[in-house]
């Protein structure tokens, strides 16, 4: 199975994602430069975290027009699994592949810490191996993770079960306001597309794939997509 990790000028979690896919998961993984038109026959596409184009104008606003994004959109439209992490999530929002927008964190601080996120839905490309309600300990690392969408859009996301991750209190597992690190609407940490193959999230699962990094809780997302694609017979043999 082949992972494509898209690299924009300013991406800085690309190597973390590559490491998780290739060395932890034992899958094929390749970097794809943002000016490339082709995804190189990838089975999974990851838009990594970072500061694409220096976050100029708005986070993800310039990256959205990179040549590779046409291929990413076509890949997503065809049902291919796409995961946007942090800045990758912001790019998916700007590109219109996911609904909503990001605002500056309500406390204005850049936040870098481990948070608890609850898996709300398991029928997406990246949460199939999770348990419903499972609480994952995953780091966040952002200045603009304050997820916003108009109320009617939020209601629709809830109705269609497209809120995939919520910031929750570690002890109770409930989405309290104290557990909301950035002011995100309804404690939303991640959402998915209508077809459930495109997932965007602010927390960084690729940085939590090995216990030596403080948590291995993020690995289940990557295992999910491998399992989903293997079950669908959509790919060749793993490179392990």
């Amino acid at each position, binding site marked *: 199975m082949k992972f494509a990790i898209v690299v924009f000028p300013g991406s800085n979690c690309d190597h973390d994602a590559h490491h998780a896919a290739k060395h932890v998961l034992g899958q094929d993984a390749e970097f794809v430069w943002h000016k490339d038109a082709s995804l190189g026959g990838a089975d999974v596409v990851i838009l990594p975290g970072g500061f694409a184009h220096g976050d100029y*104008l*708005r986070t993800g*606003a310039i990256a959205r*027009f990179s040549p590779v994004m046409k291929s990413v959109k076509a890949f997503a439209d065809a049902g291919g699994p796409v995961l946007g992490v942090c800045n990758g999530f912001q790019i998916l*929002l*700007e590109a219109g592949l996911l609904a*909503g*927008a990001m*605002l*500056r*964190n*309500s*406390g*204005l601080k850049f936040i870098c810490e481990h948070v608890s996120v609850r898996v709300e839905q398991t029928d997406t490309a990246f949460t199939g191996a999770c348990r419903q309600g499972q609480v994952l300990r995953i780091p966040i690392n952002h200045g603009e993770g*304050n997820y*916003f*969408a*108009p109320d009617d859009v939020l209601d629709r996301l809830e109705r269609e079960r497209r809120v995939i991750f919520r910031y929750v209190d570690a002890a109770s597992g409930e989405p309290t306001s104290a557990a909301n690190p950035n*002011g995100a609407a309804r404690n939303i940490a991640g959402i998915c597309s209508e077809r459930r193959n495109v997932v965007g999230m602010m927390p960084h699962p690729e940085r939590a794939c090995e216990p030596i990094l403080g948590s291995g809780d993020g690995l289940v997302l990557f295992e999910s997509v491998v399992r989903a694609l293997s079950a669908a017979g959509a790919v060749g043999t793993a490179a392990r």
Partner: protein
Amino acid sequence: MKARVFVTLKPSVFDPQGRTIAEALHSMGYTGVGDVRQGKYFELEVDAKSAEEAKTVAGDVADKLLANPVIESYRVEVD
């Protein structure tokens, strides 16, 4: 021709930066300043034959890139 584009957050969108600026002003003694909303301002040099054409180009650019319609609205002025 010069077009000026003013991008502002929609009224329904909370502006944490504006709030912080307002709080700073209050601590400076400007208690008469109420709410503050922060926005963006762009000056575009547009090759156009008429003000109308320049305004259309600037509006197009604002729609596609300068503003995010989910959270922002904009206003265009042309000299």
